[in-house]
């Protein structure tokens, strides 16, 4: 196969610039099947998908002015999963391939460097990998419907495009906003990542969200904000309280009606200032819902995309060599990149599969890595009436998880807890 190369899309530019030896921005989507995974068949399935997903099977290359992605000749071999997810991908590994395929018992997991794609693109790839695997193993015919693509088809141009370049507004929106409370704790020395997954009934979660007249994402953000607020109360005196803000990555595909398998999300920060007074659960829910609704209207999103794309298009900046760009991006990221939100809640939504696949699939999981300076993150995915809320942390202290999940229980939502405790 002839090697192809792709410019990094607008959202992907920051990730190679700010990566460190012990941290980079990776996330994971996994599917648990009903039977044990056969690694040989999994490798064959990945090889079969290689020509269909040219923007996923890529490696990171360094150019003179920009980083870029280049297709790889072979799919990465599936390896056994680790005791914890999302170990950093080193520069050396990224030069070979920007994704990692893992298996453990019934589970197939794929970890992605964020420059390659976002959660939606990753979910599409994992569903196709599972479909191909099941087709090879069980001999079932899976129709190309929903997110399942025909593996024999050539990739469509719309799948490989940078949609950020298509949806900007004529004016840009300022990035200025107040800094948020920073969660902290004692870090794990060996980069161990604690995963606590709470499994809740989707119907009940929806019912509780609708009782408040809000969406599930806004509801979970509100409960998380309450947990972070409680954490701040334990951690700081009232005089030193800061804004409580939750970062929500928004899928722009729905906003602009564009499709791509590359990054096309934008994060918005929603929250409140606890110094202004006490807030009830209902008030926080409504605050979160209305802020999310106001922030995610297409006009505002287009303005924010313009702000980001303008910099990328600026000729003087384009002519600056990569090392200097990297230095500038690191500086900006250090000063403001992670100071505007307390943690992320990334909601993938409800996953659906073709009917013929459903009996073979037990569950889906979605996990995002921690940021460099904030130690907790949360990701959500729903499948077959259950919502899997995965909270990851790089510190020993599990107080935030306790506050969040016990608050859900208090609100009348039963939670089943799983973890990778050592």
């Amino acid at each position, binding site marked *: 196969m002839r090697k192809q190369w792709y410019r990094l899309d607008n959202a992907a530019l920051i990730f190679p610039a700010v990566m460190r030896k012990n941290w980079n921005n990776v996330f994971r989507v996994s599917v648990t099947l009903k039977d044990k995974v056969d690694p040989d068949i999994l490798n064959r399935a990945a090889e079969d998908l290689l020509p269909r997903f040219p923007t996923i099977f890529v490696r990171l290359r360094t150019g003179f002015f920009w980083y870029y992605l280049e297709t790889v000749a072979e799919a990465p071999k599936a390896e056994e*999963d*680790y*005791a914890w997810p999302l170990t950093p991908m080193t520069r050396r*590994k990224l030069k070979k391939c920007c994704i990692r395929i893992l298996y*453990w018992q019934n589970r197939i997991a794929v970890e992605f460097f964020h420059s390659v794609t976002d959660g939606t693109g990753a979910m599409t790839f994992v569903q196709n990998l599972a479909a191909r695997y099941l087709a090879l193993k069980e001999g079932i015919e899976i129709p190309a419907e929903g997110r399942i693509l025909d593996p024999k088809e050539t990739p469509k141009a719309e799948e490989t495009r940078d949609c950020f370049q298509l949806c900007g507004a004529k004016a840009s929106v300022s990035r200025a906003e107040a800094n948020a409370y920073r969660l902290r704790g004692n870090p794990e020395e060996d980069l161990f990542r604690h995963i606590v997954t709470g499994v809740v009934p989707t119907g009940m979660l929806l019912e509780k969200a609708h009782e408040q007249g809000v969406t599930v994402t806004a509801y979970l953000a509100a409960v998380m904000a309450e947990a972070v607020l409680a954490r701040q109360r334990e951690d700081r005196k009232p005089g030193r309280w800061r804004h409580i803000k939750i970062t929500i990555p928004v899928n722009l595909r729905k906003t602009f009606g564009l499709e791509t398998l590359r990054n096309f999300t934008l994060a918005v920060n929603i929250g409140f200032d606890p110094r202004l007074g006490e807030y009830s659960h209902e008030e926080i829910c409504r605050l979160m819902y209305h802020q999310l609704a106001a922030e995610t209207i297409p006009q505002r999103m287009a303005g924010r995309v313009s702000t980001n794309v303008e910099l990328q298009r600026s000729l003087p900046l384009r002519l600056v060599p990569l090392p200097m760009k990297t230095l500038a991006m690191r500086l900006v990221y250090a000063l403001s990149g992670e100071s505007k939100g307390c943690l992320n809640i990334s909601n993938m939504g409800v996953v659906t599969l073709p009917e013929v696949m459903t009996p073979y699939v037990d569950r889906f999981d979605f996990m995002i890595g921690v940021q460099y300076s904030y130690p907790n993150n949360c990701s959500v995915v729903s499948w077959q009436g259950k919502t899997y809320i995965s909270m990851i942390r790089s510190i020993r202290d599990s107080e935030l998880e306790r506050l969040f*999940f016990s608050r859900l229980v208090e609100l009348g939502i*039963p939670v089943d807890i*799983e973890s990778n405790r050592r």
Partner: protein
Amino acid sequence: MYCVYCGVRLQDGAGECPLCHTKVAAPALPEQPAEPSWPDRVPRKEKQSGKRLVLSLITVILIAAALSCLIFCLKSTGRVGWSGIAALGMALFWVWVILPQWFPRWRPMIFLPIDFLCLGGYLLYICKATGGNWFLSFAFPVTALAAVLTLAGVAMMRYIVQGRLRLMSLLLIAIGLSFMLVEFFQHITFGTPMFVWSLYCMSVFCLIGLFLFIASFIPGWRAALRRTFFY
């Protein structure tokens, strides 16, 4: 099986709640633990072979360059002359830049004294090789001053958690005053006029130091600086 404290349902066989670490007491349930959802496999630390190869190559190139200088100078002039300064300069570069790279962690309180000792030795060699008389009265006290201030700064940033801003402000004032000391040593060694350039440096550092010192007593300013500079 539920956690009595958090109210969440735990996995079968869980010894304690992963949220609050409350021990599970359920004698009625079988003791056999459930199958773990995560393996025991720990990621291997990536080998540093590539890095070591590059470091070895740089070391070999530096040795070759130093030896070439020495041989060329000895053959052409019969004396070590300038080649000694060049060769020791390369050795100094190796000690300052390459040596710490061989170790997995940079330990400043070990490496920095070695670095400044080598710098002092290098300056002493240059002084002797050029027949100068400036080492004891200028190079030695200035190097020692730089070593003390650098070590104090690094120790402060690495080992002291509380009151960093105040210490940093005092360090900046000390650096400002040290410029005057340097000019004083310059005056007694080379006979240059006293306190010309050092006054400018001193005033800039002392003003910043004074601002930070005052800011360290005002909670709002302290928080704003902390937020901006992540100290």
